[in-house]
Every structure is written in structure tokens, then in C-alpha cells.
């Protein structure tokens, strides 16, 4: 068992919880291999959740792959839907999405556009805001997956507002290597700490205030069933590359792919 497997387990438990929420999570947006694996883990544990493999197919059975794109195999028989369905589902609150911003700030604003500089000449250009400007304003479930819990990602104020401060919703939760933290009423509060993590560890790594650290429960370790679920869908742990696994370890996976 690794710490990264525990992050996957926490994500899958969150998906399961949200399927019983109000509104219920019905479709998990596949934003990364980690979210896909967590979705399959939740399904293995009995959660009624579909995995959307893109903008036009909202019930797929994807597999982890380095080049994610639209790597969807084994459809459940659903036809191609109009791309606007993505935002219809989002507005109904039926979507769950794990976003990974480059910056997340004290007001729960997200940034995936640039760091430093100006809009016309960024110091560090990032890919672009993707769906962040729509996610934070929707009534759907939004998790902020930030494995690197540090001042590099968590900041007082983002350099560019991709996603504004979210309107209240069923889930506005940060998941990191240190634990889970909710945003509501203008404040961040701890909802669970990883095993072996002390409140002072969170204080040292977070440039903004986080409440309820002393009362936050410990998150349960990964169970044998959860480990088995990860092994079934991602034995090579490709999902770990979304959680901090060194990119240098991609080489053997690429070599294997070349042999196919």
C-alpha cells in the first residue's frame, strides 16, 4: 500500500458519498487517470455512477493510459450525445469532477492559465482555463485534487481567476496528500487528515487559514477491497502519475507501448 493508493481510496469514497448526496452525483467526469480509477473503485464498491469519457459519451468503461484523450473502450451502449449535454448535466448538479488547478487560493478560486506576468505575456504559461470557469459556478460536485499540498499550489490569491469563488454547492472539497478540506462561507475547514498527519503539518504547508484542524478525524487506511479494486483496473499504477509519481518512471511504460 502506498500513500498514493490512499489518495485514490479517499477519492473513491468521496464519489460513493456523493452518489447519495443532494443532488446525487450520477456522472463522473473523467479528468485524469486518477479520477477514472477512483470512479471504477466506487463502482466496484457498489456506487451507481457513470464515467463520462468526454463531452459526447457519458457512460464509458475507460482504461488508464498515459495519453488519456478519449481513450474509452467498452461502452455501455449509449450513443453519441450532443456536447452541450456536458453542461446540461453540470447545471443539474449530476456531475462530479476532480479538477487539478495549478493554483488554488484562500477564496477557493482556481487558476490554470498563467503564473506571473500579464495575460499578454505570462511569466509561466499554463494550458488554459479548461472547464474551471464553469465548474465553480455549477451546482455539481467539485473536488480540487492537489496532491502537492504546498505553497507552490495553495496561495493567498491566484494570479489569474479561471474559476471564481464557488457558489454554494453539494461538494467543494480539497483532496491532498495531507487530507480533505471543505470550502464554505468564505472559510476552509479540515474534514479529515491522512494517517500520520498532524494539524501542525497542515499549518506549515498552507499559506491561508484552515479551521477545525484539531477536531478533524483521521481518514481510514486503504482497505484490502480498495487495494484489490485498484489492482484490477490499474495494476501498473498509471494513475499515480496524476498524484506525484515521478515522470521519469514513464519510460518502461512507453517502451512496453512501443512493443504492442
Amino acid at each position, binding site marked *: 500500500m502506498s500513500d498514493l493508493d490512499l489518495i485514490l481510496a479517499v477519492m473513491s469514497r468521496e464519489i460513493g458519498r456523493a452518489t447519495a448526496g443532494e443532488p446525487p452525483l450520477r456522472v463522473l467526469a473523467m479528468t485524469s487517470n486518477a479520477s477514472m480509477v477512483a470512479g471504477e473503485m466506487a463502482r466496484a464498491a457498489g456506487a451507481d455512477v457513470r464515467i463520462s469519457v468526454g463531452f459526447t459519451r457519458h457512460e464509458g468503461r475507460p482504461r488508464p493510459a498515459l495519453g488519456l*484523450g478519449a481513450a474509452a473502450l467498452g461502452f455501455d451502449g449509449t450513443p453519441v450525445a450532443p456536447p452541450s449535454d456536458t453542461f446540461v448535466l453540470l447545471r443539474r448538479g449530476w456531475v462530479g469532477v476532480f479538477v487539478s488547478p495549478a493554483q488554488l487560493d484562500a477564496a477557493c478560486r482556481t487558476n490554470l492559465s498563467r503564473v506571473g506576468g500579464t495575460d499578454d505575456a505570462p511569466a509561466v504559461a499554463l494550458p*488554459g482555463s479548461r472547464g474551471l470557469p464553469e465548474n465553480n*459556478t455549477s451546482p455539481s460536485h467539485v473536488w480540487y485534487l492537489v496532491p502537492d499540498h504546498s505553497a507552490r499550489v495553495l496561495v493567498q490569491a491566484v494570479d489569474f481567476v479561471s474559476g*471564481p469563488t464557488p457558489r454554494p454547492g453539494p461538494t467543494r472539497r480539497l483532496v491532498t496528500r495531507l487530507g480533505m478540506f471543505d470550502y464554505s462561507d468564505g472559510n476552509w475547514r479540515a474534514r479529515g487528515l491522512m494517517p500520520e498527519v498532524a494539524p501542525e503539518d497542515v499549518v506549515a504547508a498552507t499559506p491561508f487559514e484552515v479551521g477545525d484542524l484539531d477536531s478533524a478525524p483521521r481518514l481510514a487506511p486503504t482497505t484490502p477491497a480498495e487495494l484489490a479494486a485498484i489492482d484490477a483496473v490499474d495494476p501498473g499504477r498509471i494513475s499515480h502519475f496524476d498524484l506525484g509519481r515521478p515522470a521519469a518512471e514513464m519510460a518502461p511504460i512507453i517502451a512496453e*507501448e512501443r512493443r504492442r
Partner: protein
Amino acid sequence: MNAAGFEDRLSDGMTLAIGGLGLQRKPMSLIRRVVDSGVTDLRVVTYLGSVDVEFLIAAGVVAEVHSAGVGMDGFGLAPAFRRARQTGSIRFVEWSEGSLMSALEAGARGLPSMPTPTDPRSDVVHGEWLRVAPDPFTNQEIVIARALEPDVAVVHAAGVDDQRNLYCHGDLGVDGLMVRAAATSVASASVAVAFDAPGVAISGMWIDDVVVDPTATWPTGCEPDVLIDLATMSTWAAGTGDDVTGLVP
């Protein structure tokens, strides 16, 4: 089917829409033909870009990129795009996924603009292509996306039949909107297939010309039959992004 008249549709300064998503179904052979034709100062529209944008920027033919994101998926950031944004050598018009979809929908319907579910407080809402305005019925502030009307759209499909209907196994993205918004659309396809009405993803009435080529997406993929060239992607992402030969087969 080799789209012999493709180059006649191209012109300097045109708006070129590119289908596919990330590292999947990018019509790379058609994009290389765009560069080989000698046209320049292109306005490129791509929903989620990767080596399509990288190749065009490295070839020096891009003036402006419209996109909700350009990157190399699990391989990290796109080096040519990053350098171009940071030096200001191209203009990046940043959209969100929702607003870019609305802009193409407006273009497809012949409307000047269309409301979009984008938060007006986001910094992507800028004056030229996205504006905040009061809804005429509720007075609620909403974001309006200006229509995008590409001159040419290029897309790739897994299969094409003899009526130019396109077939797609994975996510179609916004390719359907692009071909409806564009003045003319050309497709590449991995294989020729027999007509199968329930399987048609894009009707042939939207497609003006087709080329069949199983290598047309290289180095991107067309799952499940054509896999991404991971080694090429890894090498490109780790480099400086200024040598187009890295993306030429």
C-alpha cells in the same frame, strides 16, 4: 479519396478549426498539408489542443490561437505554445470549455452571439469575444459569447463511407459543431467502411472532401485502432518545441 483540392480552400489569415481532443484524433496529415501550402497568419481554433497547435506554432504560421487549453495531457505542458505565449509571438484568446462551445454553436446557427454558462467573474471573460450583459428578460448578468465562424474545419474520424459519413469510436468532442460552423470542412479517416446508419457520428452533408489514411493522426491516436505514439509525445514535451521535424513522420 485523397482530398486533392484541399489546398485550394486555404488562404492567408484564414480561421482554421481543428477537431479532436488533446492527444486523440488530431488530423495531423491535413495540418502538415496546411503548413506545406505556404499559408500564414492563421487564426487557429481548437477546443483542447496539443501537437496540432505545437506543429503550427513551430512552423511559424500562427497569428492567433483560440482554445480552452493547449497541453500534452500526461506528458505535461506544450513547449511551443508556452514559449509563444510567454514571448508574445502569438496572441492567445483564452476560452473556457463552455464558452467556446457556445461560440461555435452561435456560428453554426448563424447567430452573432450566444449566452454561455460561464461565470462572469472569471478572468476569461474579456471584451473582444466574451462580454457580460444583462439578460433581456431577467436582467441577470450573463456572459455572451461572440460567434466563431471558421473558414475551414479539419477533423479526423475512425471511418468514412462512400457518402462521406464519418464514424467515431470515442468521444466526438465538438467536431460536430466545428463542421457545422465552418464554411468548408475536410476530414481524414483511418479506414473506409461500409454505410451503417446508426453508427454515423457526423453526416456526410457537412463534409466537403475526405482523405483515407491510417497514419493521418500520427503521433496522436484514434482509439482503439490507432494508438498514440508515446515516445514521440514524450520526446516533444521534454524538448523546446522549435523543431517541426520532431512532429513529421
